[in-house]
């Protein structure tokens, strides 16, 4: 039952993004190729970062619009058409990136659902990193899991142990996990380790560091995960 519901909301999320309008309010001209590049980087960052990153749903929506438009144009092209088939191949590649990106986020949302939805527990406001659809999904997921735990076990427990202490029991991302990153914009005097001398990060250099020391650099796009 719960599973059906989850699947329902997942497809809702995907459909909603197709329907919603293209979002170009950033005030800068970007080509589709640049959007695709940013989306691919967002995909890799999300893949390697231990915690949920800021949602890049506007890139996803922009690409979905592009795909839709392209598919519209391709309707006239026959099966054996060379150019049409190349376009279709490209669309498949972009679709893969989009769905992988959304799936990675959903996996993180499910894994850390209570941590994300608990507003007071730490300095990062994860709720603001969710897209509208993801927020609905996370809320429902939390409620379903909590209801399930209650009806399955907690309600049958003696009163002194029949409540859920979310602060103690929920999984949290390991922000100290190691990862590989490359420097996109040079940075001066970054503390890669509290006991060590600060290091300058040169453009194009690659480092193996803990996520926590570079998370703010990742947020403003000075480094990328690789």
């Amino acid at each position, binding site marked *: 039952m719960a599973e059906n519901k989850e699947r329902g909301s997942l497809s809702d999320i995907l459909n909603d993004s197709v329907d919603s309008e293209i979002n170009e309010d950033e005030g800068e001209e970007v080509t589709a190729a640049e959007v695709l590049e940013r989306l691919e980087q967002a995909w890799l960052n999300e893949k390697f970062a231990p915690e949920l990153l800021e949602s890049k749903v506007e890139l996803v929506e922009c690409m979905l619009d592009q795909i839709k438009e392209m598919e519209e144009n391709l309707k006239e092209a026959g099966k054996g058409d060379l150019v049409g088939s190349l*376009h279709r191949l490209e669309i498949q590649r972009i679709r893969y990136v989009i769905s992988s990106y959304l799936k990675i986020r959903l996996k993180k949302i499910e894994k850390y659902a209570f941590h994300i939805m608990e507003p007071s527990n730490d300095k990062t406001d994860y709720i603001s990193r969710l897209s509208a659809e993801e927020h609905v999904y996370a809320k429902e997921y939390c409620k379903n899991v909590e209801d399930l735990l209650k009806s399955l076990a907690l309600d049958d427990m003696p009163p002194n142990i029949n409540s859920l202490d979310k602060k103690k029991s929920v999984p949290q991302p390991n922000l100290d996990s*190691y990862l590989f990153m490359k420097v996109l914009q040079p940075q001066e005097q970054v503390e890669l380790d509290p006991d060590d001398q600060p290091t300058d990060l040169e453009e194009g250099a690659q480092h*193996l560091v803990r996520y926590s020391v570079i998370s703010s650099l990742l947020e403003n796009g000075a480094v990328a995960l690789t």
Partner: protein
Amino acid sequence: MDPSEVDFLSEKQHVKILPNFKEGRIFLISGDLGPFEPGLTAEVPLWMAVNLKQRKKCRIIPPDWMNIGQLEERKDEEKEREYFTEMPSKSYLELASLLLKSARDDIPHADEVQTLIKDIWEIRMAKLRKSINIMMQEKETHARLDNLTHLEINSIRPFLTSALDRMHILRCNVVENPSTGTDY
């Protein structure tokens, strides 16, 4: 990351092809390509080159570093240098293995090229293992790994990152409880 995704990323890079068909510019989402004229070289992403090759629509021109002379030079340089040399492509092995698989007839001396690239890979992986060993012995908490390619990073990622995560937990425990601490 799954190795197939490393391949997927490498397929974005552009290679030169010699088409045998005529076509105007193609306006892909990732950029415009063409025009294509039989006998005139054109640049396309690797995924497209391989697809066209499979349909016998083009010959792929191997990148200029993919010949015995250059590869032997690179191999010697890789052996001599202490650090990793910069490879001609961020995904030289993926590119080479894909071309050797799908367009072997377009690469002169394919067998030798294959052996040389495998040699370079092995020299680099040995270097990588050695540097990890040094990193562990020196108890470094971070490392700089310039010029390492995607596939090389990916091949050590699962082991190295989880081992370092563990060591970090141990190290934090020692800082919190110095009296019980041993070497770590």
